[in-house]
């Protein structure tokens, strides 16, 4: 085990007050520590010195919950591909390195404290259409609706999204298109989600816009940062689904019966 001596530049902020970078020395960090364990060590030392520890989000520390965030050296979840901050290890850094640690920056993700941001905009997008309406009661027979293997696999790829927000953080425009496209695409691909496809697509995109995220400019920084390596081709599908749903809405397709009753 080697020990690393690191220089940290950590963003400190309380609520909506202006933040600043604090220089924190982090000597003797074991190289087998994860990035979050390194932050734990730093915080222990800050507490012992009577200082305010750095606030950051974390939960499972297994790379599956989507709770950890942090932009490390300008990259959401740090430099490793397909890796969350909790699964990033300090052996990827060299002793003497200066590491910039910042929150996920987006207008739609206001800073709560230091490195913690409020990502409930994502929850409101899910609430707008990220579900299928089903009757409650007895569970339906599992094989009642046949699903092709290719479709099931594709939907599973999109469903791998853990909603961490790295796509927003890494996007030059703070766009949430990769997240929304994965969440809408997962359901729009499956037969169970097909009935509400148009309504879902319009509602989720409108909520995304209302939250103040930016617009996609097809630069694919999101895909490079995504810890679950969600493909940007889901964004192409969302664009396609949105175009179709908009044209249908424009001409009033599927509304004849309800209007005839008015």
């Amino acid at each position, binding site marked *: 085990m080697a020990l690393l001596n690191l220089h940290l*530049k950590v*963003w400190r902020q309380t609520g909506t007050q202006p*933040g600043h*970078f604090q220089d924190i020395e982090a000597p003797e960090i074991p190289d087998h520590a994860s990035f979050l364990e390194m932050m734990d060590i730093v915080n222990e030392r800050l507490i012992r010195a009577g200082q305010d520890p750095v606030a950051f989000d974390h939960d499972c520390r297994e790379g599956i919950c989507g709770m950890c965030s942090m*932009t490390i*050296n*300008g*990259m959401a979840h740090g430099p490793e591909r397909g890796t969350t901050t909790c699964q990033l290890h300090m052996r990827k850094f060299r002793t003497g390195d200066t590491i*910039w640690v*910042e929150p996920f*920056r*987006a*207008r*739609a993700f206001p800073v709560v404290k230091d490195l913690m941001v409020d990502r409930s905009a994502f929850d409101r997008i899910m609430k707008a259409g990220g579900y299928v309406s089903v009757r409650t009661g007895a569970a339906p027979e599992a094989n009642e609706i046949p699903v092709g293997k290719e479709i099931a696999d594709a939907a599973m790829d999109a469903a791998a999204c853990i909603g961490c927000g790295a796509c927003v953080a*890494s996007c*030059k*425009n*703070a*766009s949430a*298109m990769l997240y929304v496209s994965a969440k809408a695409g997962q359901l729009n691909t499956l037969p169970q989600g097909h009935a509400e496809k148009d309504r879902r697509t319009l509602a989720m*995109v*409108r909520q*995304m*816009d209302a939250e*103040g*995220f*930016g*617009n*996609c*400019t*097809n*630069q*694919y*920084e999101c*895909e*490079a*940062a995504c810890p679950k390596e969600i*493909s*940007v*081709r889901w*964004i*192409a*599908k*969302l*664009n*396609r*689904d*949105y*175009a179709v749903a*908009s044209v249908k*809405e*424009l001409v*009033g397709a599927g509304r004849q019966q309800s209007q005839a009753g008015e």
Partner: protein
Amino acid sequence: MSSLQDSLSRFYASSIGKKLLVALSGLALIGFVLGHMIGNLLIFAGPDAINEYGHMLHTMGHGGLIWVARLGLLAAVVVHIVATIHLTRQNKAARKDAYGKEATRVASSASRIMIFSGLTILAFVIYHLLHFTVRVGNEYNNPALYTAMLDGQPVHNVYKMVIDGFSWAPASVFYIIAVALLCNHLSHGFASLFQTLGLATNKTWPLFQKAGHAFALLILIGNCSIPIAIWLFGYGR
């Protein structure tokens, strides 16, 4: 407001709606850029070829079709620019506080300067129209100097106008700079529009990307060959 108007304004208000309009207007402009270049390359087929082509464009449909094309292009340009400026302003507003340490992993440099390359191309297009279409500050509208005979009929001497136009170094230099920026703009924009239109899949994307780079290069070489031949190699002078 009628429900149709309501749906249309909601479409434009949405991020994807504006992007679809940018993609479709971009596609129309790509078609124009290609046609314009092929037509202009007739300069290398001699005076009669390009003069006849110019005459044909101005007399199609009793001189009406050129105005249909011009108004269509104007509409595409306006939609393309107004929507992208809206989108860019929203993008700037979506991240108020910049990162202390910025990193770029995969975004091409062309994709990051689209608004600047686009606005420079706009400035060039205005200059280019004043130069060769409206013909202000020059003698190209003087029939005594710029009339050629084609099948015994007097027509505008496009050939002489282009040769004279590009014989002036600043015009050629600005033209080459603008075409280089257009090539840069297309190297991101061409493939990008297929992603926005929802036609990009894992299978088709590499093709769109290669086609975009090839198209951008074709436009660069084809267009720049004209001022380079005239200004540097004295073609037609």
